[in-house]
């Protein structure tokens, strides 16, 4: 339908030029926002990770639990109250382990991984999500700014028990 002219490489009209300029400026704004927030924003995507294995990570979590366990919740998951520093959680079909009891305003390096399939570590209702992948230890440097009982929802499909995979994080004042 409709052959173009022999030479279609022609200058732009006034409105086209203006729109192209405005749209380009908007593209620059969009591009600049991410590095800008990287430097001045308080919420940035964690970029510290290590290679691990499910066996190795599980061992690390168990040692961590053994050291700081203070109780057990109603689902028989240990509750741990670690000091600020490295804390560990694994996800597996179909639980998050352990329950962390942390303090508001303190900074924790939360190591997240999976022992089996891919899981989505989704902290609600804060609403922050990170991927928990087997073989990857993802270090999330987190400072809770509100207190209360928070839920860890799995938001990456992990077979039939996926919607029952609910964990907990408690933040004390």
């Amino acid at each position, binding site marked *: *339908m*409709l*052959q173009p*002219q022999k030479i*279609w*490489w*022609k200058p*732009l009209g006034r*409105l086209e030029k*203006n*729109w*192209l300029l405005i*749209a380009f400026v*908007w*593209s620059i704004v*969009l*591009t600049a*926002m*991410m590095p800008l*927030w*990287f430097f001045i924003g*308080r*919420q940035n*995507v*964690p*970029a510290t*990770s290590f290679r691990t294995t499910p066996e190795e990570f599980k061992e690390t979590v168990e040692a961590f639990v053994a050291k700081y366990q203070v109780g057990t919740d109603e689902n028989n998951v240990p509750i741990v109250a670690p000091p600020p520093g490295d804390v560990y959680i694994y996800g597996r079909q179909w639980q998050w382990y352990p329950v962390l009891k942390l303090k508001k305003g303190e*900074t924790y390096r939360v190591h997240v991984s999976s022992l089996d*399939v*891919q899981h*989505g570590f*989704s*902290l*609600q*209702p*804060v*609403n*922050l*999500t*990170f*991927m928990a*992948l087997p073989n*990857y230890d*993802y270090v*999330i440097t*987190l400072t809770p*700014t*509100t207190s209360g*009982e928070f*839920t860890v*929802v*799995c*938001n*990456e*499909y992990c*077979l039939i028990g996926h*919607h*029952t995979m*609910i964990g*907990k994080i408690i933040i004390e004042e």
Partner: protein
Amino acid sequence: MTVTTFPWSKDRSTTEYRTCPVTTLKVDLAAEKLIIANAVAAVVFLLIGGIFALLLALTRWQAIHLLNPVWFYRVLTAHGFDMLVLWIVFFECAGLYFASTVMLNARQVAPKLAWSAFVLMVIGAVMVNVIVLMGKADVLFTAYVPLKAHPLFYLGVILFAVGALMVIGIFFTNIVVAKREKRYEGSLPLAVFGLVTAAILATYTLLAGAATFVPAFLWSLGLFENYDPGIYRNLFWAFGHPAQQINLAAMVSIWYMLATITVGATPINEKLSRFAFVLYIFFINLGSAHHLLVDPGLSFAWKVSNTSYAMYLAVLGSLIHAFSIPAAVEVALRRQGHKRGLLEWLRKAPWGEPGFAALVVSMFLFGWIGGVTGVTIGTEQINMVAHNTMRIPGHFHATVVAGTTLAFMGLTYYVIPLIFRRELVLKSWAKWQPYIFGFGMALVSIGMIVSGIQGIPRRHWDITFVNPTAVPGTVNLSLAVMGVGALIAVVGGAMFLIVVLASVFLGQKREANRLTLLSGDENPLIEHAVKPLTPSEEHRFQPKGTFVIVLAFLMFFAVYYFSNWWLLGRTWIVR
């Protein structure tokens, strides 16, 4: 219909073609059969996928909660594959055959090879559906390793992809041959160039698909133990997202086609429109990274460079089309005499013409909901509050369904008289269908997005398992909006299917004698003697109304975008 044969200088056989009485284009009969076969396959999978859509919406609408968990995840797998891959790719293959033969007055090369590609695609499509519905591949469309499906699932996907890659090769060959045999002069028509864009993106997509699924197939057979999930995700999304960018390029081409068909629009500046397609070609595949923004193992530099499509140059491409297409429509309508004020052209436009309705509704919903939300949630840091929530399906139902699918539906109404050569029946249904489907899908998207903003996960059977304090009561309302929207959209989808199936099976067999279906002008191509604008016409008919509309769009975009940074700022401190 008179059939003429071409004896070619080199080949031993002859090609039969007919001349379209409406467009005067030469239609290779072999190409026509391929177009029809692929279009029919597309619509069959749209129907199946659409039934699944209804079942899924009625399950996530918590008040109804129709399917049990096993069937929810199973149907979700099938729905994703049938819609995102089968409906859309079969339709695009029909479009590729059309663009590389009919639109160029050229012949279809190697029809037998093209048919074997079609057969491969159908076999793959059926294999995947059967194995999924048998319960042996409850892994969802993404099939994220280490979730493991039956080997026949991966094999089915591979066969489909090989068939599709063959179609891409045949498409490029058609064009090369057409050029060599001087079937057309100068550059390819713009809409064909847009489909060339789609085919270029498809080449990368399908090669990435092979790189992803061939190892997955071997892994599922037990030939090796560990398929690293990070590597899989990188490869899968090199297939999964560019697959959607193919749809974008094809949809934009079809928008140009619908603008030409319904109001006789021509591009106001071919260089600008083609430049926008070239921006897609170079940069749009990088956006795959937006699926990996909260993944371990990847740096800020990689995430930001890729998710931004290299400084948002691919987004610039879309912003150009967002102006160029309405501008072309505006100029065409101003030339027809509707030149009062800023927006008389819009008021006097043929809103009752199905293709025009589909064009406008599809562009509006794709841009204002799909595009704006997509760029926003694809921003590295903002993704932390959006990843795997229902904002994701909210975004892509606005792009792929309200946008691409509706545009494809709009074009189909013209394919029926022009290629199937049947009278379109139930034309009044066709008139309303784009509005009903669009409205329904808008509600679906908005319901999903609002649920997602509240943290509700996607691909999740029952949110009530979650602690009540984490799930606001307003979520039930937004999920219900999604559910009601789905019912309306299904009515819109059913209207389309009924019009199309009734026309193909019961419509009167006859040669088309007009281009438009319902609006006054029978053939804008000829009536308005559509020629490129003369310099004095260019000066007189300026797309001022469009300029105001796109400025308003940009302001909406900015407000939505910056609100999301504000939302992010209210969460915990994280790095």
